[in-house]
Structures are given as structure tokens and as C-alpha cells.
């Protein structure tokens, strides 16, 4: 049963229904426009031809995305878009009550601080770097996401932090049409524990470097998800269709471990 909050502009519907709306709005995948229209009408959000003004705002970044955002949290990947000064995210919930949430683009960092529950953590000394096998790290994280024991998989003190104080794992990435000579993407991966936040840098040789990070440095890093104007190719009409995120879902390596 879909619904629409005309005050906040939040559309609540099934995962497939929001996925179809996203596919239609971005143009990046096939969609059954008739079914989407029926869903919007039932929710009181207007129609594809005449969407409610708040839904028009929410769909603006999908119609002309400049930045594609992928946010993985608690084992699920969610697609998001930045464009026209707004940020819109397909929030994965239980599948029958997913939400399309939109806000001014400059609220992205504040929203992520709330969503990822970034706040003060202990300041105890931790090793500056810990090198681990990526598959071992993924296995430990996946086990903890499934509330299963992970002890002994990682070097200390990371092992104890993950095994006994695991809070969450998340990954946030954004990509955009880059200005010449500048990077066109950024990816942040972190493990959150009672002992503090840890950044994860995946290397091509199958290892990962895990470093302690503060909540402040995490906030500053999240701010990098919105690229400065000089990093974006201003002549690009939009993010190319093939790079535009549409669907999310379970993170494969988490699902593989948890069966």
C-alpha cells in the first residue's frame, strides 16, 4: 500500500514500485509507466504527467543527475542522486515500505551523520594502521552483521573491537562527470565499533588497510561526497545513463557469508 506525505514529500511504497519509478525518472532502465502511475495515484502523489509539487522536487535529481550516490549500510546497498540542488535517496527498509526521501543537497552530510549514527566515540590509542586480508575482513564484518561470532579472524585490537563491540559497517560512494584532470569518484568505507570508527582502504592486491578515524574526520570525509564545482565537468548535461544508479539490494559478500 503506497502513501505520500505532502508535507515532507516522502513517498512510501514497495521496493519494486519505487524501483520502477526510479527507472522511469532516470531513464536508465525499463519501467512499466502504467503501473507507476497507478501507484502514484493511489498514494495521492499525482501522476507521472502531473506529479505533486513535492514529488517533482524529489524527482528532479533523478531526471538530471549530476552525482550518483551509492550508500551501503547494514548489508544493504541503496541508490541516491544529486542534481538541481537536491539529493534524493531510495531508502531500503523492509521491502514493502521502502521510501523515496529528498532534501536540499547541502543537507546530505547532516542526513548521513544521522543515518550512520556518527557521534562521539572513545579516544583510546589504537594502531595507526592494520593490514588485513580483505576476504577475512569481509567475513568478520558479514558475520557480525548477522549477529554471529567473528572472534579470531583479524589481528588485535581490531579483532576484539569487531567481535565484541561491533556497531555497523557502511560504505558511501559518489561519482560524477569529472572535469579534465580531476577524479570523478570517491568511496568511503568504515567499520563502526564501540572502540571507535575505522576507515577501510581496499587495495588491489587483496589486502585492506584499516585505520582509526575520528567522528570529526568522518564528517569531513562525508562532505567530500558532494564534489566542489571545479571537480565536475560543467559541460556534461548529466551523469551518463550507464553510470546512473537505479537498483540497490543486499551486498553480495554479506549475503554470501550469511547464506
Amino acid at each position, binding site marked *: 500500500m503506497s502513501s505520500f506525505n505532502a508535507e515532507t514529500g516522502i513517498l512510501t511504497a514497495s521496493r519494486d514500485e519505487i524501483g520502477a519509478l526510479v527507472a522511469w525518472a532516470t531513464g536508465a532502465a525499463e519501467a512499466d509507466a502504467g503501473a507507476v502511475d497507478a501507484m502514484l495515484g493511489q498514494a495521492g502523489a499525482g501522476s507521472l504527467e502531473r506529479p505533486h509539487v513535492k514529488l517533482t522536487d524529489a524527482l528532479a535529481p533523478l531526471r538530471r543527475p549530476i552525482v550518483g550516490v551509492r550508500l551501503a549500510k547494514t548489508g544493504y546497498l541503496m541508490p541516491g542522486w544529486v542534481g538541481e540542488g537536491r539529493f534524493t535517496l531510495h531508502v531500503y527498509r523492509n521491502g514493502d515500505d521502502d521510501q523515496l526521501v529528498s532534501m536540499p543537497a547541502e543537507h546530505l*552530510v*547532516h542526513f548521513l551523520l544521522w543515518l550512520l549514527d556518527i557521534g*562521539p566515540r572513545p579516544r583510546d590509542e589504537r594502531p595507526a594502521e592494520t593490514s588485513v586480508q580483505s576476504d577475512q575482513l569481509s567475513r568478520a564484518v558479514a558475520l557480525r552483521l548477522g549477529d554471529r561470532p567473528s572472534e579470531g579472524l583479524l589481528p588485535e585490537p581490531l579483532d576484539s573491537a569487531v567481535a565484541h563491540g561491533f556497531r555497523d559497517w557502511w560504505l558511501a560512494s559518489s561519482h560524477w562527470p569529472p572535469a579534465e584532470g580531476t577524479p570523478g569518484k570517491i568511496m568511503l568505507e568504515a567499520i563502526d565499533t564501540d572502540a571507535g570508527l575505522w576507515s577501510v582502504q581496499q587495495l588491489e592486491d587483496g589486502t585492506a588497510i584499516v585505520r582509526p578515524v575520528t567522528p570529526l574526520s568522518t564528517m569531513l570525509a562525508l562532505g567530500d561526497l558532494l564534489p566542489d564545482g571545479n571537480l565536475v565537468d560543467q559541460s556534461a548535461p548529466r551523469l551518463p545513463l550507464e553510470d546512473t544508479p537505479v537498483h540497490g539490494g543486499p551486498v553480495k559478500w554479506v549475503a554470501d557469508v550469511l547464506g
Partner: protein
Amino acid sequence: MRLRRRTPTHGLEFELEFPEELNVYRDVAGTDLIVAAGEVNDPGATVISIGAVRGEEPVTRDEHVRRVRANSADLQPHLVDEGPMPLAGHKSWWTVDAIVVGGRSLVLDRWMLVRDGVGWTASVQTPALNMHSIRDGAITIVSTLRFT
């Protein structure tokens, strides 16, 4: 005889070093001094403020911190980080919050300390979009705070 312009902190209990082009306000209730890049009431401005709570019973730093945070609860701050940090020769408690004011997403750094039983607060408010380019410079200005 050459007339000298008074410094912006003339008559105050402290000195602060900042560029001349910034706007100075000394008539905003609850503060001793505000230095702003832009207009003080513009949420898009970067604002540095220094102020004390006078005329009350002596407080401890913890009491002052609790009072300051309680008084700003209407901002619905999202506390990002906090910890001890020296400021102007005193032990201060630093906090950084994400807040929304007038639809703008802002980062609010505060340093709270007690001097002779009086609670002082120095703060830097920066638009979140500019936090990489402006926040460090504004914090450098706060670090020049010296009580006289």
C-alpha cells in the same frame, strides 16, 4: 597628533586577532563579541562569537557545558564529536554539532571553559558546504583568544 582607531576588543576582557575585513558586532545579546564573514543574521555567513554568562552563581565547566547544550536544544544539534581542548590557557570542552538554521546546514564548533567561576563560550558556525575551505581558518582565529 595621530589618532588611533580603537581595537575591536577595546574594553573587553579578552583580545582576539582577526582580519580587518570581517564584520564586528558588539551589541548582540548574550555575546561579548561577534566576528562574521557576512551579515550576522545570514545563516550562510561564517560567524565567530565569544561570550560569557555573568551575574550567576559560580559554575563548574561541566555545569557550563550542560547549560550551553540545554540552551541550544532548539537547534536540534547532532553531536558529532567532543573532547577536552585547551583554549586561552584554560581547559575547555570542545563540541562539534551539525545543525540546520533557516534551511541551511551548518557546522557548529564550541569551546566552553570557566574562568573565575564564570562560564565562557567561544564558537564557530560555518556553512556545511564550506566546512573544508573556511572552518580551519575560523578556528585559527578562535585559537588567538587571550584573556587580558
